[in-house]
């Protein structure tokens, strides 16, 4: 099928063309409520996860809170 390459958390990754960020999170089994998405260095509000398609070459960072001091 038809894939595109993106950079996800620093790693190259191929995803289906036309996939939205929300779909990607679902595919990754991530709870959108506990993850923050940075899309091409811009923070992507949760409200816009479903309406934001992923384009070839996009740089996505998925972050959350971990133990720290």
């Amino acid at each position, binding site marked *: 099928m038809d894939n595109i390459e993106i950079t996800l958390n620093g790693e190259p990754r191929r995803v289906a063309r036309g996939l939205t960020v929300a779909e990607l999170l679902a595919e990754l089994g991530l709870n959108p409520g506990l993850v*923050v998405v940075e899309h091409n260095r811009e923070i992507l509000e949760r409200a816009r996860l479903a309406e934001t398609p992923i384009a070839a070459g996009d740089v996505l*960072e*998925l972050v*959350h809170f*971990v*133990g*720290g*001091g």
Partner: protein
Amino acid sequence: MTTTTLQEDRDDPLVIAGRTFRSRLIVGTGKYRDNETMVRAIEASGAEMVTVAVRRVDLDRTKEEGILYHLDPERVFILPNTAGCYTAEEAVRYARLARAAGLNDWVKLEVIGDQRTLLPDVAATLEAARILVAEGFKVLAYTNEDVVTALRLEDAGCAAVMPLASPIGSGLGLVNPYYIREIKRRLSVPVIVDAGVGTASDACITMEQGVDGVLMNTAIAEARDPVAMARAMRHAVVAGRLAYLAGRMPRREVAVPSSPLEGMLDAAPAGGGAGRSA
């Protein structure tokens, strides 16, 4: 078994950026051997605010899930940090990501200037603080013991200033009480001593300087028994705070008896004096 209250209520509460905390102890969530120990230690510490870091989700699921699977933001206030950032720009980026998580707009600002000591880059910290304050963040700024920098962080609008007792994770305790007292004397915003505490007496001594609170992580997480040390720290912070409020006795190099001198019996008739031996 004996029960009592920790009497934090006899004291004014700690208020940061309009938010009230009864406990003056803030704890980190890093370096615990497991999440269950972390949760029990936080509970035992009585802390009402904990720090967390912002990191990438581990897509391989080999590592633990996010901390919010273990902590309830309703029960303990979450303070995101910018640990690991070496530039103002980087710290600002992490702070924005943290706010986007939707919990609150607070940030423990850390901009490190040196990898070996983890001492702050004060100029970059100041720069980041100004940017974040302008964006409406409540900034609690980690800094060194320099009162000049502390005053500028206050001027920049920080909600609290957090000088260190000694380097992060060193456990050396409060090395320079003069500087910490001076910072407290000069600032109006809360002063929270962050980093360097190694054991309970370090926390107690720090609070005796009159500061508003103490933030620690390694001293609890790396104790042989983190839960017991967390409880120790809870008592130590209360003890130090109460002692500061109570006003200690003066130090003297001459002894002063605790029992009255008058009312002694007439000494034994001469010839006795067993105690004269030796």
